[in-house]
């Protein structure tokens, strides 16, 4: 009788477990369907994002072309205004008619380009904001699509995980059924043990299933994504200005970006991308204050905010290279060199291919910590990595330029022993890699005196410079600045490179590279001017300029001047 009752209970357990199993199959199917739909939507959004990017760049090219035409007309307008002609002559009449024609053509051009219409164009001063157009047409919509795609993808991965959990449950239920089946075939206490094990496993699956279903997937709302996209666009604009060392232009877009990030986080408080973006925005702002004013204190609050946001980003699970790299830089600027080093090493572990960019930062950290020999070794390792043609991805000129700029700025705002050496080594390595595809300068015997800057040169009948006005500070509107130096032991085979930096940022427009051709020794003079002679209206932008002259990759001489 007991045996029969036991078998009945077992039979019921078997059918109940089968029922549970079929429920799990259904739940698995349900989340699989959801996951597949999300993955599909994610793929379609990725495709749309690529399409939008390509279309936006086509449009950007179109706008750039129209802007070029507009600038060409403006340049001609300026030229017409300075051409000499006597009143009442045919020449004067033709100049007047051409000026009128240019004005009318500019009017005809304006409706064709968005960048020549408000809000991207200020007709009063003739200034256009192409960056804002790029932000509105490309960065913001592309970011929105990318974020939506990422959210869908994350949820698809989450549903996939749920499906896997349910599959595990089904497998365990199959084991339970096996135990029940075994219990039916044997007798004695062992069958009780098997039955109890089967029941325990079944209950465990039930609990596990409820637990799996109870974990909500947190996704930012569409409003938060839209706000994030706007913020990201403005942050990109601010970053561009900061990279170009236009520190005073950073404030407006970065403040707008932070305000949008705040709104996005108010809507979706767990939005990790918004924390990451806001952290980066505070970092850009801190950097612009620090480098713009050369003072550490005003940037302290922004740095603290940046560090807090980036740490929160990592806490929320967004522990990618950008979080750690930005955190490393923020900690460095705030003076926590040890914390910065840890963050940078974590970033490097995540993407070892970035050994150049992160290596430069680690070397800087070691310099600031007084470990000069270690810093030199780290820097040489990073440069060696960049020199390897297989690592083109991490040897982007952008890292050279931005670190050279940062070192220039840091030597005023947060100086440390060895920074001048690091700056010189990076500059030489960059020139050498560009010129001879190797990182070290070639040995030379040539010498050059420090640079002397001047304007208003006076030449004799043979074209020899006989007089000039030596200056360090040049007035606003300066078009051309000359530099003079004495040289010796120079050879005609030497490759000579001139680089010009404004506030530490390389001005490629004024750079040049050519073979030496003016003899072994003597006095030379070059110019810092627009590369094409006779062009009007090409002023040097205000700022502190540095001119470096490299011979065979050796930084042989240097000098500085200021344009008001």
């Amino acid at each position: 009788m007991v045996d029969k009752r036991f078998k009945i209970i077992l039979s019921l357990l078997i059918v109940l477990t089968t029922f549970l199993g079929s429920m799990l199959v259904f739940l698995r199917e349900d989340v699989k369907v959801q996951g597949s739909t999300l993955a599909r939507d994610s793929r379609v959004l990725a495709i749309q994002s690529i399409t939008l990017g390509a279309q936006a760049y086509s449009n950007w090219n179109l706008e750039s072309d129209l802007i070029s035409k507009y600038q060409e007309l403006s340049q001609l307008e300026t030229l017409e205004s300075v051409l000499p002609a006597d009143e009442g002559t045919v020449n004067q009449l033709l100049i007047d008619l051409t000026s009128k024609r240019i004005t009318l053509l500019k009017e005809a051009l304006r409706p064709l380009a968005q960048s020549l219409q408000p809000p991207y164009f200020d007709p009063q001063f003739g200034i256009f904001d192409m960056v804002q157009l790029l932000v509105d047409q490309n960065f913001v919509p592309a970011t929105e699509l990318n974020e939506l795609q990422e959210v869908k993808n994350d949820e698809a991965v989450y549903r996939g995980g749920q499906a896997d959990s349910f599959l595990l449950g089904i497998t365990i239920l199959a084991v339970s059924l096996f135990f029940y089946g075994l219990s039916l075939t044997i007798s004695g206490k062992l069958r009780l043990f098997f039955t109890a094990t089967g029941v325990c496993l079944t209950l465990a699956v039930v609990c596990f299933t409820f637990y799996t279903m109870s974990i909500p997937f947190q996704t930012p709302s569409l409003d938060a994504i839209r706000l994030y996209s706007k913020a990201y666009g403005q942050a990109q604009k601010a970053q561009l200005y900061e990279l170009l060392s236009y520190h005073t232009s950073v404030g407006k877009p970065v403040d707008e970006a932070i305000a949008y990030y705040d709104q996005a986080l108010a809507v979706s408080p767990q939005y990790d991308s918004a924390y990451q973006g806001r952290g980066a925005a505070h970092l850009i702002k801190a950097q612009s204050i620090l480098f713009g004013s050369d003072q550490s204190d005003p940037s302290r609050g922004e740095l603290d905010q940046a560090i807090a946001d980036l740490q929160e980003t990592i806490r929320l699970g967004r522990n990618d290279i950008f979080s750690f790299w930005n955190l490393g830089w923020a900690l460095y600027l705030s003076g926590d060199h040890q914390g910065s080093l840890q963050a940078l090493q974590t970033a490097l572990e995540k993407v070892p291919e970035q050994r150049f960019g992160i290596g430069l930062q680690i070397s800087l950290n070691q310099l600031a910590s007084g470990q000069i020999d270690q810093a030199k070794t780290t820097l040489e390792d990073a440069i060696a990595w960049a020199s390897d043609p297989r690592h083109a991805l991490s040897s982007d000129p952008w890292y050279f330029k931005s670190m050279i700029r940062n070192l220039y700025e840091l030597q005023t705002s947060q100086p440390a022993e060895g920074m001048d050496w690091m700056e010189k080594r990076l500059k030489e390595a960059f020139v050498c890699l560009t010129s001879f595809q190797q990182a070290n300068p070639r040995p030379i015997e040539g010498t050059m005196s420090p640079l002397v800057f001047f304007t208003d040169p006076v030449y004799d009948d043979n074209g020899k410079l006989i007089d000039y006005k030596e200056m360090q500070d040049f007035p606003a509107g300066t078009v051309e600045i000359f530099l003079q130096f004495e040289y010796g032991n120079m050879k005609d085979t030497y490759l000579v490179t001139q680089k010009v930096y404004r506030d530490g940022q390389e001005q490629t427009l004024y750079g040049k590279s050519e073979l030496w051709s003016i003899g072994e020794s003597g006095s030379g003079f070059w110019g810092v001017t627009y590369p094409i002679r006779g062009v009007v209206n090409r002023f040097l932008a205000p700022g502190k300029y540095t001119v470096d002259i490299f011979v065979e990759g050796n930084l042989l001489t240097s000098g500085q001047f200021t344009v008001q």
Partner: protein
Amino acid sequence: MKDGQEKTSSFKTIVSVLIALVAVTGAFVAWQSSQSSGEASTLESNGIKAALARAKAEIEISANLYRNQINFDSYLLDYRNAEITMDQTTEVPTTMIDSQQALDQLFYGRMESINRAAVYRDLVDIDYFHEQFTSSVTNSFFDQDRYRQAMLAQVATMQAIDPQVYFPRVDFQRGRALDFALSGVILSGALVCFTLALVLSNRWKFFPAAMGCGMYIFSLVIAFAGFF
């Protein structure tokens, strides 16, 4: 007593037959569910292909559109220059010494512009070029929207470029697969009820049997609904 045993025996036979039916139906719905999932995957793949084809077409159209628009802009500027130059001939005072020289310069300038404009005009897809001969060239325009739509329509005649043709069908097939899976769950519920009916010996056995029948019918309804 014997009558009671016969009744129990026939009850058990009926329930056993019902269990067998449930099992067969279960196998059928599992097969249909798998069929629908397979169909959904194929359709989804076609939908993604269409989305990619559309993206490729849109990128190519944008590039061509850019080329057309840039040529149109150049045409417009040169033609406008010629128009203004023509008007300016009236501004040359006839009393001025060398006025003929000025008029000649304007004439040659106009000829240069008009010939350059002709070259650019030839490079613009004329079907989308709108011009009004009675007024200034500035009233002309290149119809970007119509160009984009026409080009997309042209591509669509050669290949599928609308993923939305496929995706609703994918969702339908997936919903169907899910319906079959739900039907399977209810069938297993019916199996539990029928087993309970076999186990119970008193008159309570009819309750789970009736419930099992109800669940079986309900699962059939869900399964058949999946076909429509």
